[in-house]
């Protein structure tokens, strides 16, 4: 059942508290008023909305995607991708090689489709942000209570051991055998059953995405959530923000009802691609000239290892462990089972070769590697849409090859018979001896198959308006009442999964808004 105060396409235009203004020769516009409008309902938006609503402010959350409750989640990957992912998950940061990126577009945002890794920002990263970017109040000690609060709401815990599947056990044992540092993941879950359906919506609700935590909390404290609503631009009078304008998302070529929300403050939490996109469309100019710059991606590659024994990687929790041995080099490894449709479409074969390989699907261990990148890309505004460009550096390309080789060595050590590489044109590996060849080989980065789900940094925060887009508290420089609360704020990549960092920064943004107090409505009349 749909919760109270959460409105979807079917409810329009009769949103309680709204007025419908008639316009000559144009569609009627639906208007609403509130203290704060939050754009996006993922790790950033839902947290801000919840904290502000509990703090007594009148909050409206605007989410472009639809509302899909826990009961609607199944292992049908294709259906989930079509419903829960932006643009069917088929978006690329342009470059050579391109990087395919995915983000959630549903109530709960990417927290509905992520793996549930819940890690605090590493201390060295917080230290760097304080030292080099002059971010205030960001040391590990200062952030401790904020992280604790987030961890409590999303139930950040270690996995129950009986839910760990065979693929993850292989990764764990393989790492231990080589005396590598391997740790159990902390995940936002409450007695996760190990369904391995994290990326397609948790069918038990055990993964504590914002869909089942901060969004219900926001609604409970009086916030309103408008699903299927796309924000076109932020409205302003001079530098003072007055709200947002947008339209109902429909399934036809025609835009749905236009809406206008009058608000004293606007918080953008649309992610590192779309938050700068909205700012561009709104004509916001950063004095730093850095809006949309500084895009980091944590590029990922994956290897597919075939074992003699049956693995059945779909039985057991997603990413139970992380190999942290090479974290100082910016490399983190994990076992990441994916369903046959996605495994098959990303394998570099077709015809009989693909058919024969896919027969081994139950014997596959799919392992991935996250790279803390050193190069940055950019988001630009192209005909009103944000377009990302990103060029992998030679140095990062070399580290990806090294990481892949290390991962392959470990998998062969555990009995892998064959490993398919994420490098097009490079033959599969059949033994540990082949890995030596990989170390020695110069692999052009253009042939690497890169994916990511961690987009960061395009509205970087910091204490220098000449270098940063937002101040330490997410407020966009040279505007009044406009804030950012998502991974756009990161001044640099963090080298671990970003959800908890986003949530913690969003908590700070909410605290700042509450500290500023309710702005009198007449100031914005």
């Amino acid at each position, binding site marked *: 059942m749909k919760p109270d105060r959460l409105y979807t396409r079917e409810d329009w235009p009769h949103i309680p508290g709204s007025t419908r203004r008639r316009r000559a020769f144009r569609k009627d516009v639906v208007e609403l008023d509130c203290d704060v409008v939050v754009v996006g309902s993922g790790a950033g938006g839902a947290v801000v909305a919840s904290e502000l609503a509990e703090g007594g402010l009148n909050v409206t959350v605007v989410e472009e995607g639809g509302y899909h409750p826990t009961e609607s989640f199944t292992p049908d990957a294709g259906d989930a991708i079509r419903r829960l992912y932006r643009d069917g998950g088929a978006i690329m940061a342009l470059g050579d090689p391109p990087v395919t990126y995915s983000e959630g577009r549903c109530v709960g945002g990417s927290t509905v489709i992520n793996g549930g890794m819940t890690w605090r920002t590493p201390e060295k990263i917080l230290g760097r942000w304080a030292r080099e970017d002059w971010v205030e109040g960001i040391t590990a000690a200062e952030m401790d209570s904020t992280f604790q609060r987030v961890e409590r709401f999303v139930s950040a815990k270690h996995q129950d051991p009986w839910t760990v599947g065979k693929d993850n056990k292989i990764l764990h044992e393989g790492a231990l055998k080589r005396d590598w540092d391997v740790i159990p993941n902390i995940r936002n879950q409450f007695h996760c059953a190990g369904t391995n*359906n994290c990326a397609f919506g948790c069918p038990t609700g055990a993964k504590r995405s914002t869909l089942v935590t901060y969004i219900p909390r926001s609604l409970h404290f009086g916030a309103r959530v408008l699903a299927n609503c796309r924000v076109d631009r932020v409205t302003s009078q001079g530098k003072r923000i007055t709200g947002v304008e947008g339209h109902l998302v429909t399934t036809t070529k025609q835009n749905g009802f236009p809406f206008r929300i009058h608000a004293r403050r606007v918080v953008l939490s649309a992610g590192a691609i779309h938050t700068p996109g909205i700012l561009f469309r709104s004509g916001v100019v950063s004095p730093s000239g850095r809006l949309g710059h500084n895009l980091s991606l944590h590029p990922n590659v994956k290897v597919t290892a075939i074992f003699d024994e049956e693995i059945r990687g779909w039985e057991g929790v997603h990413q139970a462990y992380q190999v942290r041995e090479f974290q100082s080099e910016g490399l983190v490894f994990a076992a990441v089972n994916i369903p046959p449709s996605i495994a098959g479409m990303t394998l570099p074969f*077709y015809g009989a070769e693909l058919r024969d390989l896919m027969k081994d*699907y139950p014997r596959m261990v799919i392992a991935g590697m996250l790279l803390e990148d050193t190069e940055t890309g950019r988001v630009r505004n192209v005909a009103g849409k944000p377009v990302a460009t990103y060029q992998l550096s030679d140095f990062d390309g070399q580290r990806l090859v090294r990481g892949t080789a290390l991962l392959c060595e470990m998998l062969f050590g555990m009995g892998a018979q064959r490993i398919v590489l994420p490098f097009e044109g490079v033959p599969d590996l059949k033994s540990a001896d082949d890995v030596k060849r990989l170390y020695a080989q110069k692999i052009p980065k253009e042939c690497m198959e890169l994916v990511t789900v961690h987009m960061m940094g395009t509205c970087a925060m910091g204490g220098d308006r000449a270098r940063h887009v937002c101040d330490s508290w997410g407020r966009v420089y040279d505007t009044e009442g406009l804030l950012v609360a998502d991974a756009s704020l990161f001044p640099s990549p963090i080298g671990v999964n970003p959800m908890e960092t986003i949530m913690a920064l969003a908590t700070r943004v909410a605290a*700042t808004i509450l500290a500023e107090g309710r702005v009198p409505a007449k100031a914005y009349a």
Partner: protein
Amino acid sequence: MSELADFRLSKAARRTLAALAPIVLTEEVDELGIRDEVVDGVELFLRSIPVAVRVAILAGIVTFEATARAVPSSLGRGFSRLPPELAAAHFARYWHSPLGALKQLARGMKMFLVMSYYEHPTKLAQLEYHPDRWIAQVAQERLERFAEEIREHEAQVTAPLPLPADVPRALPLAGGGQS
């Protein structure tokens, strides 16, 4: 609730994809009797992607079909009317093309067909891939084992817990202004 665009593949595009299916997926797609359903699955996926990308893909499919006519051995026939060996050779030319756009098109078409094929229940049953059974089993076990704890935890979701004073925040600026 549908999030999908109102779009249907043209007959010509369906013909091209249907002809490509046995090359990408082998004759197994016909042995399982699911060729049309695989093309339906591609259409479903195309409904979820942005219009501009969809238009580019459809233009690519038309190009792929038409360029077969330029090959002398095709005798002026489009891709979907070629005999199997010539059709396979045409796709292979795209797959191995030194031109990035052609290569990407071949990979794109392959990805759509493979995604649709390996989502089909008949194919998944053949692979003995039954995640639904696994999910049902472990979800039930979770409820049996932790029902009380889960109820208590869910009740905590909406319990009041005001933001503590030690969460870092900016000090209010004079006049309510902005940085």
